[in-house]
Protein backbone atom coordinates (compact mmCIF):
# COMPACT_ATOMS: atom_id res chain seq x y z
CA UNK A 1 0.00 0.00 0.00
CA UNK A 2 1.46 3.35 -0.91
CA UNK A 3 -1.24 5.66 0.42
CA UNK A 4 0.43 6.51 3.72
CA UNK A 5 -0.66 9.72 5.39
CA UNK A 6 1.25 12.83 4.42
CA UNK A 7 1.66 15.91 6.60
CA UNK A 8 3.20 19.28 5.96
CA UNK A 9 4.86 18.95 9.35
CA UNK A 10 5.27 16.00 11.72
CA UNK A 11 6.17 16.94 15.29
CA UNK A 12 7.79 14.34 17.50
CA UNK A 13 6.82 14.75 21.15
CA UNK A 14 3.83 16.60 22.63
CA UNK A 15 5.67 18.50 25.34
CA UNK A 16 5.51 22.25 25.78
CA UNK A 17 7.70 22.98 22.76
CA UNK A 18 5.99 20.53 20.41
CA UNK A 19 2.55 21.82 21.38
CA UNK A 20 3.61 25.44 20.91
CA UNK A 21 5.14 24.72 17.50
CA UNK A 22 2.00 22.79 16.55
CA UNK A 23 -0.27 25.70 17.46
CA UNK A 24 1.73 28.10 15.27
CA UNK A 25 1.86 25.76 12.29
CA UNK A 26 -1.78 24.69 12.48
CA UNK A 27 -2.93 28.29 12.93
CA UNK A 28 -1.26 29.19 9.66
CA UNK A 29 -2.88 26.38 7.76
CA UNK A 30 -0.23 23.67 7.87
CA UNK A 31 -1.38 20.09 8.07
CA UNK A 32 0.34 19.09 11.31
CA UNK A 33 0.40 15.99 13.46
CA UNK A 34 1.98 15.53 16.89
CA UNK A 35 3.31 12.06 17.67
CA UNK A 36 3.54 11.29 21.38
CA UNK A 37 4.69 7.98 22.77
CA UNK A 38 3.22 8.53 26.23
CA UNK A 39 -0.51 8.62 26.94
CA UNK A 40 -0.33 12.17 28.34
CA UNK A 41 0.96 15.42 26.93
CA UNK A 42 3.51 17.66 28.64
CA UNK A 43 6.74 15.69 28.36
CA UNK A 44 9.06 16.90 31.09
CA UNK A 45 6.33 19.15 32.50
CA UNK A 46 3.34 16.99 33.06
CA UNK A 47 1.23 15.46 35.79
CA UNK A 48 -0.07 12.08 36.82
CA UNK A 49 -2.81 10.71 39.03
CA UNK A 50 -2.13 8.42 41.95
CA UNK A 51 -4.77 7.40 44.52
CA UNK A 52 -7.08 10.15 43.33
CA UNK A 53 -4.46 12.89 43.65
CA UNK A 54 -2.86 14.80 40.82
CA UNK A 55 0.90 15.18 41.08
CA UNK A 56 2.75 17.76 38.99
CA UNK A 57 6.07 16.70 37.55
CA UNK A 58 8.76 19.03 36.37
CA UNK A 59 7.25 22.38 36.99
CA UNK A 60 7.88 23.88 40.44
CA UNK A 61 6.88 27.27 39.17
CA UNK A 62 6.44 28.94 35.87
CA UNK A 63 9.43 31.23 35.46
CA UNK A 64 9.47 34.46 33.40
CA UNK A 65 6.47 35.88 35.20
CA UNK A 66 5.83 39.55 34.50
CA UNK A 67 2.81 41.57 35.53
CA UNK A 68 0.19 42.65 32.97
CA UNK A 69 1.38 45.62 30.95
CA UNK A 70 5.07 44.63 30.92
CA UNK A 71 5.95 44.07 27.28
CA UNK A 72 8.75 42.63 25.20
CA UNK A 73 9.57 39.78 27.60
CA UNK A 74 9.40 36.04 26.76
CA UNK A 75 6.02 35.58 28.47
CA UNK A 76 4.42 38.38 26.47
CA UNK A 77 5.93 37.14 23.22
CA UNK A 78 4.68 33.67 23.91
CA UNK A 79 1.14 34.81 24.69
CA UNK A 80 1.00 36.86 21.51
CA UNK A 81 2.45 34.23 19.27
CA UNK A 82 0.04 31.58 20.53
CA UNK A 83 -2.93 33.97 20.72
CA UNK A 84 -3.37 33.20 24.41
CA UNK A 85 -5.03 35.67 26.72
CA UNK A 86 -2.93 35.85 29.87
CA UNK A 87 -6.08 35.33 31.95
CA UNK A 88 -6.26 31.82 30.52
CA UNK A 89 -3.12 30.80 32.40
CA UNK A 90 -4.49 32.42 35.57
CA UNK A 91 -1.01 32.82 37.01
CA UNK A 92 -0.60 33.51 40.73
CA UNK A 93 2.66 35.04 41.91
CA UNK A 94 5.11 33.51 44.36
CA UNK A 95 5.32 34.89 47.89
CA UNK A 96 9.10 34.85 48.25
CA UNK A 97 11.98 32.51 47.62
CA UNK A 98 15.50 32.28 48.96
CA UNK A 99 18.96 30.92 48.33
CA UNK A 100 20.24 29.34 51.56
CA UNK A 101 23.92 28.37 51.85
CA UNK A 102 25.96 26.97 54.74
CA UNK A 103 25.49 23.82 56.84
CA UNK A 104 22.21 25.15 58.25
CA UNK A 105 21.48 27.74 55.59
CA UNK A 106 23.01 30.56 57.65
CA UNK A 107 23.75 32.66 54.57
CA UNK A 108 20.46 33.57 52.99
CA UNK A 109 19.57 35.76 50.02
CA UNK A 110 15.87 36.33 49.49
CA UNK A 111 14.22 37.18 46.19
CA UNK A 112 10.72 37.89 44.97
CA UNK A 113 9.13 39.02 41.72
CA UNK A 114 10.42 42.48 42.64
CA UNK A 115 14.08 42.54 41.65
CA UNK A 116 14.87 45.25 44.25
CA UNK A 117 14.62 42.58 46.97
CA UNK A 118 17.53 40.56 45.57
CA UNK A 119 19.53 43.69 44.82
CA UNK A 120 18.99 44.93 48.38
CA UNK A 121 20.04 41.54 49.77
CA UNK A 122 23.25 41.55 47.76
CA UNK A 123 24.01 45.12 48.87
CA UNK A 124 23.49 44.19 52.54
CA UNK A 125 25.36 40.87 52.51
CA UNK A 126 28.09 41.68 49.99
CA UNK A 127 28.58 45.46 50.12
CA UNK A 128 31.93 45.23 48.31
CA UNK A 129 30.30 43.40 45.40
CA UNK A 130 27.19 45.50 44.79
CA UNK A 131 28.72 47.72 42.10
CA UNK A 132 29.97 44.70 40.20
CA UNK A 133 26.61 43.01 40.66
CA UNK A 134 24.85 46.03 39.16
CA UNK A 135 27.23 46.00 36.20
CA UNK A 136 26.49 42.32 35.66
CA UNK A 137 22.74 42.99 35.79
CA UNK A 138 23.15 45.76 33.24
CA UNK A 139 25.01 43.37 30.95
CA UNK A 140 22.31 40.73 31.37
CA UNK A 141 19.55 43.23 30.60
CA UNK A 142 21.14 44.32 27.35
CA UNK A 143 22.31 40.90 26.14
CA UNK A 144 20.50 39.57 23.06
CA UNK A 145 19.65 36.16 24.46
CA UNK A 146 17.35 34.98 21.70
CA UNK A 147 19.87 35.53 18.94
CA UNK A 148 20.19 32.32 16.97
CA UNK A 149 23.78 33.17 16.02
CA UNK A 150 25.36 33.96 19.39
CA UNK A 151 28.96 32.86 20.02
CA UNK A 152 29.33 30.60 23.08
CA UNK A 153 31.11 32.02 26.13
CA UNK A 154 31.61 30.74 29.72
CA UNK A 155 29.11 32.31 32.11
CA UNK A 156 31.48 31.79 35.06
CA UNK A 157 34.18 33.76 33.21
CA UNK A 158 31.81 36.63 32.42
CA UNK A 159 30.39 36.76 35.95
CA UNK A 160 33.91 36.77 37.46
CA UNK A 161 34.72 39.94 35.55
CA UNK A 162 32.14 41.66 37.72
CA UNK A 163 31.83 39.65 40.94
CA UNK A 164 34.88 38.72 42.99
CA UNK A 165 33.34 36.66 45.74
CA UNK A 166 32.96 32.93 45.33
CA UNK A 167 30.05 32.61 47.76
CA UNK A 168 27.98 35.25 45.97
CA UNK A 169 28.90 33.76 42.61
CA UNK A 170 27.78 30.28 43.69
CA UNK A 171 24.62 31.64 45.31
CA UNK A 172 23.62 33.38 42.08
CA UNK A 173 24.46 30.33 39.97
CA UNK A 174 22.62 27.83 42.18
CA UNK A 175 18.98 28.60 41.14
CA UNK A 176 20.02 29.41 37.59
CA UNK A 177 21.71 26.03 37.20
CA UNK A 178 19.13 23.97 39.05
CA UNK A 179 16.35 25.37 36.88
CA UNK A 180 17.92 24.72 33.54
CA UNK A 181 21.58 23.90 33.12
CA UNK A 182 22.52 20.74 31.24
CA UNK A 183 26.17 21.55 31.78
CA UNK A 184 28.16 20.74 34.91
CA UNK A 185 29.89 23.52 36.89
CA UNK A 186 29.38 26.25 34.30
CA UNK A 187 26.92 27.41 31.65
CA UNK A 188 27.04 29.07 28.32
CA UNK A 189 26.59 32.79 29.01
CA UNK A 190 23.55 33.15 26.72
CA UNK A 191 21.83 30.40 28.70
CA UNK A 192 22.80 32.06 31.98
CA UNK A 193 21.22 35.29 30.73
CA UNK A 194 17.98 33.53 29.79
CA UNK A 195 17.75 31.95 33.24
CA UNK A 196 18.90 35.04 35.16
CA UNK A 197 16.14 37.06 33.54
CA UNK A 198 13.60 34.26 33.93
CA UNK A 199 14.25 33.81 37.66
CA UNK A 200 15.48 37.10 39.07
CA UNK A 201 14.48 39.94 36.72
CA UNK A 202 11.12 38.38 35.93
CA UNK A 203 9.90 35.82 38.45
CA UNK A 204 7.83 32.84 39.57
CA UNK A 205 4.12 32.19 39.26
CA UNK A 206 1.84 29.18 39.12
CA UNK A 207 -1.75 28.49 38.14
CA UNK A 208 -3.84 27.39 41.14
CA UNK A 209 -4.30 23.98 39.57
CA UNK A 210 -0.70 23.68 38.48
CA UNK A 211 0.84 22.68 35.17
CA UNK A 212 -2.32 21.03 33.85
CA UNK A 213 -3.91 24.46 33.36
CA UNK A 214 -1.14 25.41 30.94
CA UNK A 215 -1.32 22.07 29.15
CA UNK A 216 -5.10 22.33 28.87
CA UNK A 217 -4.83 25.77 27.23
CA UNK A 218 -2.16 24.59 24.78
CA UNK A 219 -4.11 21.48 23.81
CA UNK A 220 -7.29 23.47 23.31
CA UNK A 221 -5.55 26.04 21.07
CA UNK A 222 -3.94 23.28 19.07
CA UNK A 223 -7.25 21.47 18.59
CA UNK A 224 -9.06 24.69 17.62
CA UNK A 225 -6.36 25.48 15.07
CA UNK A 226 -6.98 22.11 13.45
CA UNK A 227 -3.87 20.24 14.59
CA UNK A 228 -3.94 16.45 14.78
CA UNK A 229 -2.29 14.30 17.39
CA UNK A 230 -1.54 10.65 17.88
CA UNK A 231 -1.05 9.57 21.45
CA UNK A 232 0.68 6.35 22.53
CA UNK A 233 2.35 6.46 19.17
CA UNK A 234 6.03 7.27 19.20
CA UNK A 235 8.41 7.42 16.27
CA UNK A 236 10.76 4.46 15.90
CA UNK A 237 12.92 5.82 13.18
CA UNK A 238 13.32 8.48 10.54
CA UNK A 239 14.20 7.17 7.11
CA UNK A 240 16.23 9.35 4.78
CA UNK A 241 17.36 9.61 1.21
CA UNK A 242 20.40 11.78 0.71
CA UNK A 243 20.16 14.67 3.14
CA UNK A 244 16.37 14.63 3.51
CA UNK A 245 14.00 12.69 5.72
CA UNK A 246 11.53 10.78 3.61
CA UNK A 247 9.31 9.00 6.14
CA UNK A 248 8.72 8.29 9.80
CA UNK A 249 8.29 4.73 11.00
CA UNK A 250 5.84 4.76 13.90
CA UNK A 251 5.84 2.44 16.91
CA UNK A 252 3.03 0.36 15.39
CA UNK A 253 5.15 -0.20 12.30
CA UNK A 254 3.14 2.08 10.02
CA UNK A 255 4.72 4.79 7.91
CA UNK A 256 3.87 8.45 7.51
CA UNK A 257 5.55 11.08 5.37
CA UNK A 258 6.08 14.77 5.99
CA UNK A 259 7.73 17.73 4.28
CA UNK A 260 9.23 18.84 7.59
CA UNK A 261 9.96 17.05 10.85
CA UNK A 262 10.26 18.99 14.08
CA UNK A 263 11.70 16.88 16.87
CA UNK A 264 11.34 17.92 20.49
CA UNK A 265 12.77 14.74 21.98
CA UNK A 266 16.37 15.89 22.34
CA UNK A 267 19.44 16.01 20.11
CA UNK A 268 21.03 12.59 20.78
CA UNK A 269 17.55 11.03 20.92
CA UNK A 270 16.77 12.46 17.46
CA UNK A 271 20.14 11.41 16.09
CA UNK A 272 19.36 7.86 17.22
CA UNK A 273 16.11 7.96 15.22
CA UNK A 274 18.05 9.10 12.17
CA UNK A 275 20.61 6.34 12.50
CA UNK A 276 19.95 3.07 10.70
CA UNK A 277 19.83 1.03 13.86
CA UNK A 278 16.31 0.42 15.05
CA UNK A 279 17.36 -1.37 18.22
CA UNK A 280 18.81 0.68 21.08
CA UNK A 281 22.54 0.14 20.82
CA UNK A 282 25.22 -0.46 23.44
CA UNK A 283 27.29 2.58 22.61
CA UNK A 284 25.11 5.57 21.87
CA UNK A 285 28.22 7.46 20.89
CA UNK A 286 28.35 5.32 17.75
CA UNK A 287 25.23 6.96 16.37
CA UNK A 288 24.90 10.20 18.31
CA UNK A 289 27.05 13.22 17.65
CA UNK A 290 25.57 15.20 20.54
CA UNK A 291 26.73 14.14 23.99
CA UNK A 292 24.12 12.71 26.36
CA UNK A 293 23.58 14.95 29.40
CA UNK A 294 25.22 13.84 32.65
CA UNK A 295 22.80 15.54 35.01
CA UNK A 296 19.76 13.84 36.37
CA UNK A 297 17.61 14.33 39.44
CA UNK A 298 15.49 12.71 42.09
CA UNK A 299 12.51 14.43 43.60
CA UNK A 300 10.66 13.53 46.76
CA UNK A 301 7.03 14.55 47.02
CA UNK A 302 5.30 14.61 50.39
CA UNK A 303 1.60 15.31 50.72
CA UNK A 304 0.66 16.86 54.06
CA UNK A 305 -2.61 17.07 55.98
CA UNK A 306 -1.97 20.78 56.57
CA UNK A 307 -0.26 23.64 54.77
CA UNK A 308 3.53 23.73 55.22
CA UNK A 309 3.20 27.02 57.11
CA UNK A 310 1.27 25.14 59.83
CA UNK A 311 4.44 23.13 60.48
CA UNK A 312 6.20 26.37 61.30
CA UNK A 313 7.98 26.47 57.95
CA UNK A 314 6.92 29.99 57.00
CA UNK A 315 5.65 30.83 53.56
CA UNK A 316 8.70 30.65 51.31
CA UNK A 317 7.80 29.40 47.86
CA UNK A 318 11.12 27.93 46.71
CA UNK A 319 14.37 27.43 48.59
CA UNK A 320 17.63 26.67 46.79
CA UNK A 321 20.09 25.17 49.26
CA UNK A 322 23.71 24.14 49.49
CA UNK A 323 25.56 23.06 52.64
CA UNK A 324 29.13 23.01 51.30
CA UNK A 325 31.94 25.50 50.84
CA UNK A 326 31.44 25.23 47.10
CA UNK A 327 28.43 24.46 44.94
CA UNK A 328 28.82 21.04 43.31
CA UNK A 329 26.52 21.18 40.31
CA UNK A 330 27.79 17.97 38.76
CA UNK A 331 26.99 14.33 38.29
CA UNK A 332 27.20 12.79 41.77
CA UNK A 333 29.59 9.90 42.45
CA UNK A 334 26.83 8.29 44.53
CA UNK A 335 23.18 7.64 43.59
CA UNK A 336 22.12 11.04 44.92
CA UNK A 337 23.95 14.14 46.12
CA UNK A 338 21.91 15.59 48.99
CA UNK A 339 24.36 18.41 49.73
CA UNK A 340 22.48 20.86 47.53
CA UNK A 341 19.02 20.96 46.03
CA UNK A 342 15.69 22.71 45.75
CA UNK A 343 12.70 22.74 48.09
CA UNK A 344 9.35 23.76 46.64
CA UNK A 345 6.11 24.52 48.47
CA UNK A 346 3.37 24.85 45.86
CA UNK A 347 1.04 26.11 48.61
CA UNK A 348 3.07 29.29 48.95
CA UNK A 349 1.91 31.15 45.89
CA UNK A 350 -0.50 34.01 46.37
CA UNK A 351 -3.74 32.40 45.20
CA UNK A 352 -5.90 35.19 46.61
CA UNK A 353 -7.84 35.55 49.84
CA UNK A 354 -9.27 32.31 51.17
CA UNK A 355 -7.98 30.32 48.23
CA UNK A 356 -5.65 27.56 49.38
CA UNK A 357 -4.62 24.22 47.95
CA UNK A 358 -6.66 21.53 49.71
CA UNK A 359 -3.54 19.70 50.92
CA UNK A 360 0.01 20.64 51.81
CA UNK A 361 2.86 19.81 49.42
CA UNK A 362 6.55 19.53 50.14
CA UNK A 363 8.84 18.73 47.22
CA UNK A 364 12.64 18.33 47.30
CA UNK A 365 14.89 17.91 44.30
CA UNK A 366 18.53 16.76 44.33
CA UNK A 367 21.09 15.77 41.71
CA UNK A 368 21.30 12.06 40.91
CA UNK A 369 23.43 9.63 38.93
CA UNK A 370 21.50 7.85 36.19
CA UNK A 371 23.79 4.84 35.76
CA UNK A 372 23.49 3.97 39.44
CA UNK A 373 19.70 3.81 39.20
CA UNK A 374 19.23 2.38 35.74
CA UNK A 375 20.22 -1.24 36.18
CA UNK A 376 18.96 -2.11 39.66
CA UNK A 377 16.61 -5.02 40.02
CA UNK A 378 13.13 -4.12 41.21
CA UNK A 379 13.71 -4.96 44.87
CA UNK A 380 16.95 -2.98 45.16
CA UNK A 381 15.37 -0.10 43.27
CA UNK A 382 12.51 0.14 45.75
CA UNK A 383 14.88 -0.17 48.70
CA UNK A 384 17.19 2.54 47.38
CA UNK A 385 14.25 4.81 46.70
CA UNK A 386 13.07 4.46 50.31
CA UNK A 387 16.54 5.07 51.67
CA UNK A 388 17.20 8.16 49.55
CA UNK A 389 13.73 9.55 50.21
CA UNK A 390 14.65 9.78 53.91
CA UNK A 391 18.09 11.11 53.13
CA UNK A 392 16.90 13.88 50.79
CA UNK A 393 14.17 14.96 53.16
CA UNK A 394 16.59 15.00 56.12
CA UNK A 395 18.98 17.15 54.13
CA UNK A 396 16.27 19.63 53.14
CA UNK A 397 14.98 19.95 56.72
CA UNK A 398 18.26 21.62 57.72
CA UNK A 399 17.25 24.64 55.65
CA UNK A 400 13.79 25.01 57.18
CA UNK A 401 12.79 26.31 60.61
CA UNK A 402 12.96 23.46 63.15
CA UNK A 403 9.81 21.44 63.71
CA UNK A 404 8.15 21.68 67.13
CA UNK A 405 8.69 17.96 67.58
CA UNK A 406 10.80 15.57 65.50
CA UNK A 407 7.91 13.30 64.51
CA UNK A 408 5.66 16.17 63.44
CA UNK A 409 6.43 15.75 59.75
CA UNK A 410 5.72 12.02 59.69
CA UNK A 411 2.46 12.59 61.59
CA UNK A 412 1.41 15.25 59.06
CA UNK A 413 2.31 13.09 56.03
CA UNK A 414 -0.62 11.52 54.18
CA UNK A 415 1.14 10.30 51.04
CA UNK A 416 4.55 10.27 49.43
CA UNK A 417 6.02 9.59 46.04
CA UNK A 418 9.41 9.97 44.43
CA UNK A 419 10.82 10.11 40.96
CA UNK A 420 14.29 8.96 40.01
CA UNK A 421 16.45 9.19 36.86
CA UNK A 422 14.85 5.91 35.80
CA UNK A 423 11.36 7.44 35.99
CA UNK A 424 12.48 10.33 33.80
CA UNK A 425 13.82 8.09 31.06
CA UNK A 426 10.80 5.80 31.25
CA UNK A 427 8.26 8.59 30.73
CA UNK A 428 10.14 11.13 28.63
CA UNK A 429 12.57 9.00 26.63
CA UNK A 430 15.44 11.33 27.57
CA UNK A 431 18.70 9.38 27.55
CA UNK A 432 20.51 9.33 30.88
CA UNK A 433 17.48 10.73 32.74
CA UNK A 434 18.79 14.10 31.58
CA UNK A 435 15.96 16.52 32.25
CA UNK A 436 17.86 19.41 30.72
CA UNK A 437 19.11 17.38 27.83
CA UNK A 438 22.50 17.49 26.17
CA UNK A 439 25.11 20.04 27.30
CA UNK A 440 25.60 20.91 23.65
CA UNK A 441 22.72 23.04 22.41
CA UNK A 442 21.74 23.61 18.79
CA UNK A 443 20.53 27.17 18.64
CA UNK A 444 19.36 27.01 15.03
CA UNK A 445 17.84 23.58 15.56
CA UNK A 446 19.68 22.05 12.63
CA UNK A 447 20.37 18.35 12.30
CA UNK A 448 22.20 16.20 9.75
CA UNK A 449 19.01 16.13 7.67
CA UNK A 450 17.94 19.32 5.93
CA UNK A 451 14.22 18.99 6.75
CA UNK A 452 14.55 17.73 10.34
CA UNK A 453 14.83 20.41 13.03
CA UNK A 454 15.14 20.33 16.80
CA UNK A 455 12.99 22.27 19.21
CA UNK A 456 12.68 22.19 22.99
CA UNK A 457 15.37 21.37 25.52
CA UNK A 458 18.25 20.80 23.13
CA UNK A 459 17.56 23.86 21.02
CA UNK A 460 18.50 25.73 24.15
CA UNK A 461 15.80 28.14 25.32
CA UNK A 462 15.31 27.03 28.92
CA UNK A 463 12.45 26.77 31.37
CA UNK A 464 8.86 26.12 30.37
CA UNK A 465 8.37 29.53 28.80
CA UNK A 466 11.67 28.94 27.01
CA UNK A 467 10.48 25.54 25.82
CA UNK A 468 7.34 27.04 24.33
CA UNK A 469 9.32 29.89 22.74
CA UNK A 470 11.69 27.33 21.29
CA UNK A 471 8.85 25.56 19.52
CA UNK A 472 7.54 28.89 18.27
CA UNK A 473 10.96 30.13 17.08
CA UNK A 474 11.83 26.94 15.23
CA UNK A 475 8.41 26.77 13.55
CA UNK A 476 8.79 30.40 12.50
CA UNK A 477 12.42 30.19 11.45
CA UNK A 478 12.45 26.94 9.49
CA UNK A 479 8.93 26.74 8.16
CA UNK A 480 6.66 29.80 8.35
CA UNK A 481 9.20 32.55 7.65
CA UNK A 482 10.47 30.82 4.58
CA UNK A 483 6.95 30.52 3.25
CA UNK A 484 7.54 26.80 2.88
Amino acid at each position, binding site marked *: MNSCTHYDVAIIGAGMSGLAAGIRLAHFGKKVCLFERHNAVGGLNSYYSLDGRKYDVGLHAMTNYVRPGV*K*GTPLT*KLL*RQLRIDREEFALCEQKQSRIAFGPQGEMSLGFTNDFAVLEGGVAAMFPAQIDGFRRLVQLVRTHDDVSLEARPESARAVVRRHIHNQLLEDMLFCPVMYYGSAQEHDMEFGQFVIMFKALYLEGFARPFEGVRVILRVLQEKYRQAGGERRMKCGVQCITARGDRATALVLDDGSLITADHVLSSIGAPETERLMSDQLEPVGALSDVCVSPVGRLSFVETITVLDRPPAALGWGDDTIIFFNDSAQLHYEQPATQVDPRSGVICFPNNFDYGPGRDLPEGWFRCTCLANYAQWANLDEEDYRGDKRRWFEEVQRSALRFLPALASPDMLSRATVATDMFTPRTITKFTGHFGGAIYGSPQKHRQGRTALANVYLCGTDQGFLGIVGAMLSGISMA*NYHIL*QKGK
Partner: protein
Amino acid sequence: MTKDECKQVVLDIIADIAPDEDLSNVKPDVRLRDQLQLDSMDFLDIVMELRKRYNIEVPEAEYIQLASLDSSAEYLTPKFNALAAGKG
Protein backbone atom coordinates in the same frame (compact mmCIF):
# COMPACT_ATOMS: atom_id res chain seq x y z
CA MET B 1 -10.71 48.77 -1.34
CA THR B 2 -9.75 52.27 -0.25
CA LYS B 3 -6.52 53.12 1.50
CA ASP B 4 -8.44 53.81 4.70
CA GLU B 5 -10.06 50.39 4.55
CA CYS B 6 -6.65 48.91 3.99
CA LYS B 7 -5.29 50.64 7.09
CA GLN B 8 -8.19 49.21 9.04
CA VAL B 9 -7.33 45.70 7.80
CA VAL B 10 -3.80 46.12 9.15
CA LEU B 11 -5.04 47.57 12.43
CA ASP B 12 -7.50 44.69 12.86
CA ILE B 13 -4.67 42.21 12.40
CA ILE B 14 -2.49 44.04 14.93
CA ALA B 15 -5.41 44.08 17.38
CA ASP B 16 -5.60 40.29 17.12
CA ILE B 17 -1.91 39.53 17.39
CA ALA B 18 -1.14 42.16 20.05
CA PRO B 19 -4.34 42.58 22.09
CA ASP B 20 -2.31 44.22 24.87
CA GLU B 21 -1.49 47.25 22.68
CA ASP B 22 -3.60 50.40 22.71
CA LEU B 23 -4.45 51.12 19.07
CA SER B 24 -6.71 54.13 19.58
CA ASN B 25 -4.07 56.70 18.66
CA VAL B 26 -1.86 55.07 16.07
CA LYS B 27 -0.40 57.76 13.81
CA PRO B 28 -0.53 56.62 10.18
CA ASP B 29 2.68 58.37 9.15
CA VAL B 30 4.87 57.15 12.04
CA ARG B 31 6.60 53.76 11.99
CA LEU B 32 4.49 51.18 13.84
CA ARG B 33 7.62 49.96 15.63
CA ASP B 34 8.17 53.46 17.06
CA GLN B 35 4.75 53.78 18.61
CA LEU B 36 3.87 50.20 19.47
CA GLN B 37 5.84 47.41 21.07
CA LEU B 38 6.10 45.20 17.99
CA ASP B 39 9.10 43.00 17.26
CA SER B 40 10.13 40.97 14.22
CA MET B 41 7.98 38.04 15.39
CA ASP B 42 4.93 40.33 15.34
CA PHE B 43 5.73 41.62 11.85
CA LEU B 44 6.03 38.03 10.65
CA ASP B 45 2.56 37.51 12.05
CA ILE B 46 1.12 40.49 10.19
CA VAL B 47 2.48 39.01 6.97
CA MET B 48 1.22 35.53 7.84
CA GLU B 49 -2.25 36.81 8.72
CA LEU B 50 -2.45 38.75 5.44
CA ARG B 51 -1.75 35.53 3.62
CA LYS B 52 -4.13 33.48 5.73
CA ARG B 53 -7.06 35.89 5.62
CA TYR B 54 -6.71 37.56 2.23
CA ASN B 55 -4.28 35.49 0.19
CA ILE B 56 -1.96 38.47 0.01
CA GLU B 57 1.70 37.53 -0.34
CA VAL B 58 4.38 39.80 1.04
CA PRO B 59 7.88 38.56 0.12
CA GLU B 60 10.50 38.86 2.87
CA ALA B 61 12.37 41.59 0.98
CA GLU B 62 9.23 43.75 1.03
CA TYR B 63 8.41 43.52 4.78
CA ILE B 64 9.82 47.02 5.01
CA GLN B 65 6.75 48.29 3.14
CA LEU B 66 4.69 47.52 6.24
CA ALA B 67 6.64 49.94 8.42
CA SER B 68 3.79 52.43 8.93
CA LEU B 69 0.05 52.40 8.28
CA ASP B 70 0.50 54.85 5.40
CA SER B 71 3.21 52.79 3.73
CA SER B 72 1.19 49.60 4.32
CA ALA B 73 -1.86 51.14 2.62
CA GLU B 74 0.26 52.40 -0.24
CA TYR B 75 1.74 48.94 -0.76
CA LEU B 76 -1.23 46.70 0.00
CA THR B 77 -4.19 48.54 -1.57
CA PRO B 78 -3.16 47.75 -5.17
CA LYS B 79 -2.64 44.11 -4.14
CA PHE B 80 -6.13 43.93 -2.63
CA ASN B 81 -7.65 45.57 -5.70
CA ALA B 82 -5.77 43.33 -8.10
CA LEU B 83 -7.04 40.33 -6.19
CA ALA B 84 -10.65 41.61 -6.23
CA ALA B 85 -10.40 42.30 -10.00
CA GLY B 86 -8.99 38.83 -10.56
CA LYS B 87 -11.95 37.27 -8.77
CA GLY B 88 -14.54 39.39 -10.62
